[in-house]
């Protein structure tokens, strides 16, 4: 066909084809223009969803040990982030002027040297929350902090009661299950044996107290708490109860920060059997 075009000077055909192409491309751009606003909105919502998913992974990795698996908070370690107080009253409480997103971003980025609530005020010599941005010694980049912020803000609808989520009833973990005990022993070997032993004969080489027979000892040390709670608390805040001869405990020691919730439970079940 192109040979034909050149053999005879068919300028008319070329001109018509060009006009047709211009019409075609105009129609195509008309179609794109008509859909562009919808496409932009769709791309933004997909990106927001993507950010929430990335933030959820990061939260699971870095934040849940102190703020709870679902933002419910963990004792005196970290306040809840998924309750109505956080979304309704927190900004006024600290006198923060800009939107909540910026408050969350800033808190993650710079950490918090001092607590605004006595129960989370730490021990007076360490930061209540360390800075998480890599510019200040933390592990996170700005885009990761933004993703975490999007994830935390996504708790708003459940916090305000607009959406009710049902909790999934998971099968109970059997503390006597040999698989659970074996898992607990492995986690203990990997994370705790640097300071503790579960064998009194090895105790001399360790800087922390022996944990054999801890189930009985726990009851003596804190009669009002279950042995399980005592172990949990001691792992999360090692300086909470000190044992005679081991008072010189490092105030910054945070054993709980290196364990997942399941590892903590598995170690507890393992220790209770010793």
């Amino acid at each position, binding site marked *: 066909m192109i040979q034909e075009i050149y053999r005879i000077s068919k300028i*008319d055909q070329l001109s018509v084809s*060009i006009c047709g*192409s211009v019409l075609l491309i105009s129609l195509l751009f008309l179609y794109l223009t008509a859909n562009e606003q919808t496409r932009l909105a769709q791309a933004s919502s997909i*990106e927001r969803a993507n950010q929430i998913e*990335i933030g959820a992974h990061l939260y699971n990795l870095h934040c849940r040990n102190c703020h709870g698996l679902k933002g419910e908070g963990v004792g005196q370690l970290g306040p809840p982030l998924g309750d109505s107080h956080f979304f309704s009253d927190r900004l006024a409480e600290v006198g923060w002027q800009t939107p909540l997103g910026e408050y969350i971003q800033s808190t993650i980025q710079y950490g918090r040297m001092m607590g605004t609530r006595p129960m989370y005020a730490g021990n007076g010599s360490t930061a209540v929350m360390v800075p998480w941005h890599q510019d200040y010694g933390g592990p996170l980049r700005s885009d990761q902090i933004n993703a975490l912020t999007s994830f935390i803000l996504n708790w708003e609808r459940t916090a305000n009661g607009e959406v009710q989520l049902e909790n999934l009833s998971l099968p109970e973990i059997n503390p006597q299950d040999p698989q659970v005990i074996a898992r607990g022993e492995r986690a203990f070997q990997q994370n705790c044996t640097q300071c503790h032993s579960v064998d009194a004969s090895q105790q001399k080489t360790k800087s922390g107290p022996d944990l054999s027979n801890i189930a009985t000892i726990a009851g003596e040390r804190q009669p009002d708490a279950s042995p399980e709670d005592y172990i949990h608390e001691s792992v999360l805040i090692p300086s909470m109860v000190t044992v005679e001869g081991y008072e010189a405990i490092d105030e910054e020691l945070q054993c709980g920060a290196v364990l997942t919730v399941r590892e903590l439970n598995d170690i507890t079940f393992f220790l209770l059997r010793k």
Partner: protein
Amino acid sequence: MFRISEIPEPSRPSPSQRRNSFLLHLRPPVYQPVRVLFSTTWYLGFLSVFFLALEFLTGILLMVYYVPTPESAYGSVIRLVTEVPYGWLLRDLHRLGGECMVVVVTAHLVRVFLAGAYLGSRQFTWVTGSFLLICTLLLAFSGYLLPWDQLAFWAVTIGTGMVETIPGIGSDVMLLLRGGPEFGADGLLRFYLLHIVILPTFMVGTLAIHYYRISRLHSVAISPKVQITQNNQQSSQHQKVPLFPHVVLLEVLISLLLITLLTLIVTFYYDAPLQHHADPNHTPVVTKAPWFFLWLQGALKLGDSFLIGICLPTGLIILLFALPYIPAIARLASHHMLSGIIVAIGAVLLVYLSFFGQHSTVIEDNKVNALLEQIAPEESRSLFHNIAFDHLPQGVYEMNQNMVTEGALGKVLFDIEKDISKIKKLNHFSKLEHVVIIEDWQSDLKRITLRFHWFNTESNEPVSSEKIIFRHNDNGVQNQ
């Protein structure tokens, strides 16, 4: 203005006309019909220039939004796609155009080789053409890094890592390229400047020489087959096709059709890839070279990094440049069948090595982890993202109970179970069990936990592996 019923015989413009006309100064005023036939050149030279122009145009517009710093580069690409009207079009056209340019420029060189058009006055034209091919590949490679995602970061990190194997100067050259032991702000800026200033400048300068030589010294190469046909049609030797309006109109038409076609492709079929933000501390499970260097990745599996990664490409480049000057090879110009066989063998080798090079660096602890990566790839959507959000009911889905689950979820769970039954047949995966837990995690967000337990008969201990997937309502297949 083009509606001319009878075309007068084109006459060669006078020297004064040519001096005064910029267009006629650049292009030959008239062409022999055979030289503007599609079958003569397949318009590969024109197409190369078309794609270069497209890259310039889209590239300049992309520069308005792109920020070449590790902190902002990825975000600026996201912003381009989510906030800037037609930003996606610019990015997709730039990426697709660049990939097409690699194909077209390579095809152009192959055609010239097959036509044996690299002797005599064409020797240096071949050299400039070869240089343009190298520039095209380097432009594609340097542009690959700029989105600053995991795909780009690790592909370019591994690519530049090969330089380190050069004895003596390797580590210094690598430092010069990366701007540090690993890619950071300096490395990104260097690649950006290479991509937008240095390589385009070389390219335009060399293209000018290349074009001048073709336009003024020896015109386009004609394959022997077309030459014979042409000789048989002596009459056509006397006809001339004028540059304007004939050739120009045809080029405008082809350009318009190509723009329409490319726009249609990027609208309906093609999305420029963008993985997660580059993370120097996390090597992805799969790292792949850009597709145009996959052959090299495949070749690297066959031997030493220095020999294959540095010596082989350098040798090929030297051979490419020196080809018209080596008498033994230059004789190939008259043996078209032999040239064809060489090209065919080269193409088969290239395809084979590229295929071989795919998934070159797979970190695979065991079959279970490989299956988890298959279900929920690190850098793309999981299988659960292909299921509508409302069809992911909360629950614990244990082994052998998936048959009762209906719909898309049932199919995914069934497929997982089929893969698991294959793994179970392997020796050291005794008592392999799995559970999938789907939980409502937040408003419009579900958490899907995949958990595998087995007893490793090799190490004689229980082992477990877990992967967590988060699925937002807006990300993935939508509810009907």
